[in-house]
């Protein structure tokens, strides 16, 4: 083979590559969901997959890759080719709480490029009716007496951090020693732990406990948003004068590996804009208690960065970071 043919081959393949990029997507896109079937991320991802698939024009292949609180699936995308054919449904737990809390995490925020955040989930705190607690004041008073516990879906989950952050905002000086964290396996088990009296309270996405609140099995104490949440007849963080808690919300977004090309990111921006307009999607998500709020790639990165920094500061101040 001469240099000229080699050059021609290179040119040809480059040309092909260029053409392929221009036509992105030319084949189905793998969408990794780092959490299990039936969870909040999974339902959100599969709900948007329908209008999003229509906007993309190629099938979206949904793949649940679970394990280690979302880390296994995130690493799968971190190591994937940066061609836009492997994307991740990133979630608050895997991409702001985990990086803030775990020194052992095999990835950082810089390993990903976010193309959007499309869903915000308010966080609510709740107790069991038998506890006799009806307001945040009661809860804080109980904390001073001692013996208060909170449940979470695991170490380094949003639920874990949320409970600590709420306590610390309400003036509990050493939330780690005054209260006890009882981790559970999964968000469902965390709610059950409060139902059966294993733990005193939990702070989690409002949608996860909406049915318990409607059935009067749990008593809500507050929500972290500025606006009230339907079905939760309680003060907001703004009412209670704790605006810092507005940062404490769940979210779902889409990310690719760090080196994702700009034109791919732009395409995703356009597709998401079309997909989130879909009335059926909006109706389903709002019924589940989510707030649909589409962010551009830049806004999404800034939002996540901001939340990460808030969490990181709290974690460092309290010495909660998991080393080793």
């Amino acid at each position, binding site marked *: 083979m001469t240099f000229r043919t080699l050059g021609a081959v290179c040119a040809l393949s480059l040309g092909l590559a260029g053409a392929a990029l221009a036509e992105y997507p030319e*084949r189905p896109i*793998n969408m990794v969901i780092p959490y299990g079937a039936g969870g909040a991320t999974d339902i959100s991802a599969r709900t948007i997959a329908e209008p999003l698939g229509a906007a993309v024009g190629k099938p979206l*292949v*949904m*793949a649940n890759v679970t394990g280690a609180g979302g880390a296994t699936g995130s690493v799968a995308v971190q190591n994937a080719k940066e061609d836009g054919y492997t994307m991740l449904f990133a979630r608050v737990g895997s991409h702001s709480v985990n990086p803030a809390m775990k020194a052992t995490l095999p990835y950082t925020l810089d390993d990903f490029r976010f193309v959007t955040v499309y869903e915000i989930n308010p966080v609510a705190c709740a107790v069991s009716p038998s506890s006799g607690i009806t307001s945040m004041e009661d809860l804080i008073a109980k904390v001073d007496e001692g013996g208060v516990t909170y449940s979470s879906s695991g170490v380094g989950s949003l639920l874990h951090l949320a409970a600590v952050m709420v306590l610390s905002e309400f003036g509990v000086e050493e939330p780690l020693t005054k209260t006890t964290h009882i981790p559970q396996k999964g968000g469902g088990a965390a709610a059950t732990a409060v139902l059966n009296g294993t733990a005193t309270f939990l702070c989690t996405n409002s949608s996860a406990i909406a049915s318990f609140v409607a059935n009067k099995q749990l008593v809500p104490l507050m929500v972290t948003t500025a606006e009230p949440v339907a079905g939760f007849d309680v003060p907001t963080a703004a009412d209670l004068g704790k605006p810092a808690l507005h940062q404490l919300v769940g979210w779902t977004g889409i990310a690719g590996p760090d080196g994702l090309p700009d034109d791919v990111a732009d395409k995703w921006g356009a597709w998401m804009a079309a997909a989130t307009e879909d009335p059926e999607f909006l109706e389903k998500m709002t019924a589940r208690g989510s707030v649909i709020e589409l962010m551009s790639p830049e806004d999404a990165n800034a939002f996540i960065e901001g939340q990460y920094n808030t969490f990181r500061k709290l974690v460092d101040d309290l*010495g909660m970071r*998991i*080393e*080793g």
Partner: protein
Amino acid sequence: MTQRQVQLRLGFGALLAAIFLAVYAIPAWVSSPSNVGNVILSPLFWPYALSGFTGLAGLGLVFSGLRLEDTGTPVNTPSENPNAAWLRLAGMAVIMGLTMIALPRLGMVLTSMLIFGATAFLVRTRHPVTAVFCAVIIPLVLYAFFAHVAGVAIPQGNILRLP
């Protein structure tokens, strides 16, 4: 191998494993934060407990082995040709090793075709034509099912990219 040998080998194996776990593996590969308040809650507690139990089970196996008289009856039916059998096992290990290397590169369908063929001939099938036919068809059918009915992202290869 007789019953006595089985018990003794397992017993000594378990003892060695218990010592290895307690002396090297647990300190090296299980990390525990420095601020653990109570020894019962430490991440190390359960692994150490397990290595202790393993040691006990090992002792029990050794003693029960020593109590057995050697009958000389082997516990496994011998293979007709042990050397060839070991070779075939090694061949299977190689197939599995290659599978792990080939899966991300060749894709699942091509790799499965090769595995099917290789395994069928390794066990000296009496139906070579059927085996080759199945080696091509079965991975394709499974692909069609898992990729298009179940919606699973079956790994595609660099050479062959199926619709």
